């Protein structure tokens, strides 16, 4: 089956945060809002971003980036959520198979299977998976964007697009076949560059990063300006563990066991002949 993807066109985003709200509404991930007498407890962090980070309850946030250009301020609006990598470190390190590749190519999640180890949160190049696990017991479950395929809340298999895409009023978010969205993204980036030759930094992000992401970004600036890693890296430690240490163990242990068995056999045989000689 051909891969599906979300295309986020940052130049169309008006930062209404409708996607954030519909994500919570559909996936039933209410945030606990701290209250005080006659209101909610709030603080000014010097940004319109709210909440400040993804969390087990917030799988998607809109980023507000103010960029000073001379006397002017330019707004860049970003989208922070799971990027659904093809070479997904989280899938590789997940010991329980809770994280896996969906037939559409993105990273789906079976929460039932999650053991709360949090490896995914420590290997993700985009720092997305979140879990509230007890520090002492380690009991807890991870949460992240499932691209609206959570069992019981599966929009995709019902033929719908993800909730964030459905609600986007400016079509900054589009869902569809990845190949089709790629060519659409390329066209958009080309026209952005043509329209503004002075600023040639418009980028299509996600075409080849980590084997190809299933969330593609049309950016009017370099990825770094949006707080994205320019060249996201698959952690070398995953390769070390899965391609070196794991196979090594499967070779070394039988070799040691076999060597020791051989040693015992030889020693027994010589021991016996020595006894018979005595």
């Amino acid at each position: 089956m051909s891969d599906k993807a979300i295309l986020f066109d940052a130049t169309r985003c008006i930062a209404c945060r409708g996607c954030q709200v519909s994500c919570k509404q559909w996936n039933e991930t209410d945030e606990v809002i701290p209250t005080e007498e006659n209101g909610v407890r709030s603080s000014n962090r010097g940004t319109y971003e709210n909440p400040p980070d993804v969390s087990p309850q917030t799988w998607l946030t809109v980023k507000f980036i103010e960029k000073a250009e001379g006397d002017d301020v330019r707004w860049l609006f970003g989208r922070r959520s799971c990027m659904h990598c093809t070479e997904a470190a989280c899938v590789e390190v997940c010991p329980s198979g809770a994280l896996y590749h969906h037939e559409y190519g993105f990273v789906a999640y079976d929460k039932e299977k999650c053991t709360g180890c949090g490896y995914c949160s420590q290997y993700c190049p985009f720092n997305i998976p979140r879990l509230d696990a007890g520090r002492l017991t380690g009991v807890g479950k991870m949460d992240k964007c499932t691209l609206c395929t959570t069992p019981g809340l599966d929009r995709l298999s019902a033929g719908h697009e993800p909730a964030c895409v459905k609600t986007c009023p400016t079509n900054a978010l589009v869902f569809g076949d990845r190949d089709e969205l790629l060519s659409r993204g390329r066209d958009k980036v080309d026209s952005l560059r043509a329209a503004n030759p002075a600023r040639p930094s418009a980028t299509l992000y996600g075409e080849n990063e980590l084997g190809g992401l299933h969330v593609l970004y049309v950016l009017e600036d370099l990825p770094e300006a949006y707080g994205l890693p320019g060249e996201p890296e698959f952690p070398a430690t995953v390769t070390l563990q899965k391609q070196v240490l794991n196979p090594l163990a499967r070779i070394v242990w039988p070799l040691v066991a076999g060597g020791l068995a051989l040693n015992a056999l030889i020693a027994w045989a010589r021991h016996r002949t020595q006894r018979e000689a005595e």
Partner: protein
Amino acid sequence: MELVERYTPRARWFHWLIAVVFIELVLSGLLIFLPWLTVGMVGTWIRIIHRIGAVILIAAPLMMTLFSWRRSWEFTREAFIWGKEDLEWLKAAPGYYFGGDPRLMPPQGYINTGMKMYRLAIILGGAVFIITGFIMWFLKGIVPPVVFQWSLAAHDVAFIVAIGMFLLHFQLGVFHPRMDESILSMVDGKVSGVYAKSHHGKWYDEVKNAKEDSEPAPS
């Protein structure tokens, strides 16, 4: 038949407690290390029993140090005292352990060079397990992810080595014809005089001399 006490009851209880907890940790660790082994079996409970095992495996030696501090100090010190006799052991060991003439092996003390290396590996490997385990348990999300990642890799390396060492320990204790009193001595604490003399000649002489001064045997 002459019997020599080699392990006190406390040492034996300690050994078997460590043995049971070690195997529990190996099995629960294996399920996390080789997930393909156990598709569908891995649950949160594995991580919990791994942590319980870790606490016991750390607490037991600490208690031992508290209650038998003099012996524990000796246990550690012995592993670090090396001399030219150890070189002789290394030269004689291959022939000896492959069933060659036992007379070619020079007399050994309470522990031989192989046991020294084993203790060193336990001390070093234990430190790696404890430090990296502590980081992964308590400092996840506090230290940078790359520290967590390398802790897990180091934990894996120590795990691979530890299982190899366990197999060696098990073979020598249970299957090796030359160590025929090894496993029993860890059950009832005693070895025969013949065994003590042939395997730990220098220690046997010390025990003999001490006995003449009517002192208890070192344990």
